[in-house]
């Protein structure tokens, strides 16, 4: 019986393909917009998530000066020193680690090969704070840190570009006129949130960097990893207090350093995407409503056109419920037709958009199923009134109609 009804609905839609498609435009656009936006939004936010993960969790970054955000930062401001790092480590609670960094772009050379690397001086906390995974070898020992030993840990890009297939552990890497023994290599992390290759890196003990590379004792930035996300604001305030005191900033004067919560910044980016998605969702809802009204309209026309047919069906013994079901199924099939069309178009747009915006294309099955269900629901809601009108027709009146 239901299958008969579905077949009947199909054939009456086929009879009026153009009319049906025009009617469905509202639903097609609504569903298409939702699918495209949600799919793109998912892609964008999963990219943000990925970036968040790469950044290391719950991280605060302290830089000298009131810098604008971005790599580098101003150099004229007073930089930090090792005692600042020690003080932060001592005075802050609820932290996983405090890592000073000083950095310089230099050529790393091995044999006949060289590669532009970010040469970084830091301590062992840095590996934890930045969520690096050691793939082979070891990190610096305390004595190596204290003594400023000529040892280094290298990133995946350096391993690949300079040691191509060879085991780098124990080899000597040359940076300028300084050379260090490779004691560990790290797993790949990929691009940073800002698009640079994080794996083109050579890590040295901070003191080694200061003495052999920089020739000064400046620390460009301090990363602080907080154990729990909820504690970030408190740790941020405490760190500010510690540094203001150490740098003897008078109450009322501005900080001459900046503490940034990177997690926060990317979370804001993510929530912006969410707001955008919500906004477009509202637009889609309106066009679904318009689509629903279109379906109601076309079903009313159909009921009027087919009054005689309905009269015949009622006269030969169809129950109200059976006629109601027939027209309801027709409305649902119509709406689903629009929904499927919309899903296809939406996915197509999302795939194109994802390619253009360079975000992953994540088709979400749940959202597709939901769009399908919503289309059916629209069919039921907006098809009900016309279907009831058909079911309540008086058979004699209906038969008298030409």
């Amino acid at each position, binding site marked *: *019986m239901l299958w008969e009804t579905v077949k009947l609905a199909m054939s009456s839609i086929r009879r009026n393909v153009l009319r049906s498609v025009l009617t469905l435009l509202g639903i097609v656009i609504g569903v298409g917009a939702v699918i495209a936006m949600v799919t793109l939004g998912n892609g964008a936010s999963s990219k943000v998530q990925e970036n968040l993960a790469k950044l290391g969790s719950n991280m605060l970054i302290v830089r000298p000066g009131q810098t604008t955000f971005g790599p580098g930062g101003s150099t004229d401001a007073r930089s930090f020193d090792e005692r600042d790092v020690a003080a932060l480590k001592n005075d802050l609670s609820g932290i996983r680690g405090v890592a000073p960094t000083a950095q310089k772009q230099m050529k790393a050379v091995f044999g006949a090969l060289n590669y532009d690397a970010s040469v970084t001086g830091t301590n062992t906390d840095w590996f934890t704070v930045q969520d690096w995974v050691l793939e082979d070898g070891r990190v610096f020992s305390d004595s190596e840190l204290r003594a400023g030993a000529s040892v280094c840990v290298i990133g995946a890009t350096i391993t690949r570009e300079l040691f191509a297939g060879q085991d780098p552990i124990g080899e000597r890497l040359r940076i300028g006129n300084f050379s260090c023994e490779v004691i560990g290599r790290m797993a790949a992390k990929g691009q940073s949130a800002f698009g640079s290759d994080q794996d083109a890196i050579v890590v040295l003990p901070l003191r080694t960097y200061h003495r052999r590379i920089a020739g000064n004792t400046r620390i460009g930035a301090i990363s602080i990893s907080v154990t729990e996300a909820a504690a970030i604001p408190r740790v941020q305030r405490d760190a500010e207090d510690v540094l203001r005191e150490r740098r003897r900033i008078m109450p009322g004067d501005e900080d001459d350093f900046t503490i940034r919560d990177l997690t926060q910044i990317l979370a804001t980016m993510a929530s912006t995407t969410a707001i955008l998605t919500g906004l477009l969702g509202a637009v889609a809802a309106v066009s679904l409503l318009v689509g629903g009204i279109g379906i109601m309209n076309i079903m009313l026309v159909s009921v009027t056109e087919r009054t005689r047919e309905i009269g*015949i069906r009622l*006269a030969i*013994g169809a*129950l*109200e419920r059976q006629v109601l079901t027939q027209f309801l199924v027709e409305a649902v099939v119509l709406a689903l037709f629009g929904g499927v069309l919309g899903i296809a178009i939406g996915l197509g747009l999302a795939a194109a958009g994802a390619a253009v915006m360079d975000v992953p294309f994540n088709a979400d099955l749940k959202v597709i199923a939901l769009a399908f269900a919503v289309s059916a629901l629209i069919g039921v809601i907006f098809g009900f009134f016309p279907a009831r009108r058909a079911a309540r027709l008086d058979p004699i009146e209906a038969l008298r109609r030409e």
Partner: protein
Amino acid sequence: MSGEAPLVSFTGVTRFYGEGGGLVRALAGVDLTINRGEFIAIMGPSGSGKSTAMNIIGCLDRPSSGSFTLLGVEVNHLSQDQRALLRRNFVGFVFQGFNLLNRTTAIENVELPLIYRGMGRRERRERAREALHRVGLQGREHHTPGELSGGQQQRVAIARAIVTDPLLLLADEPTGNLDSQRSLEIMELIARLNEERGITVVMVTHEPGMAGFAHRIIRFVDGRIASDEQRAAA
């Protein structure tokens, strides 16, 4: 349903259409009893209330006043669905002007009442094929009404009316738009259904020749029964 009750009983049945100045009295007090197995012809001038009476017997319409019972059941107070169930189970209707679904094939038209009864596809097909066979339309199962002649369409309409094995076959001018040869064929078919299957037949006709097949002739004039004569079996 008691076997004692007459199949159809009218007591003081009236049917008005419209209201005020435009009031039309289609039936003006009709008393009538029809028993099982009868073959009745209803005659009378145009507008005398024949179709109105047929619609009431077929449970499509209800009297404005008076009592109408089918198989002893008072139909006046039944809901639309309850009347649909009576139609579905006991009545086969051949409408004035076939009232076939134009875009569906002959066999699908005949199947329709069975679909609404919830009969399975295979049994339905079988019975529809058999009904078409009985009206002499074998080989035309998959033609749409547009591809059939008037007489053939009329026979599809009859097949649709008898496919459910009704107690009562109502035919409103079944030969109205057919030539005399086709008309005779249809009448013979209907007479055979009455004789062989014991189906009660009530038929409206303008043609005395067709009425000659019936056992009882009722004449309507101005919404009343003017004469009701029993004929010796032909």
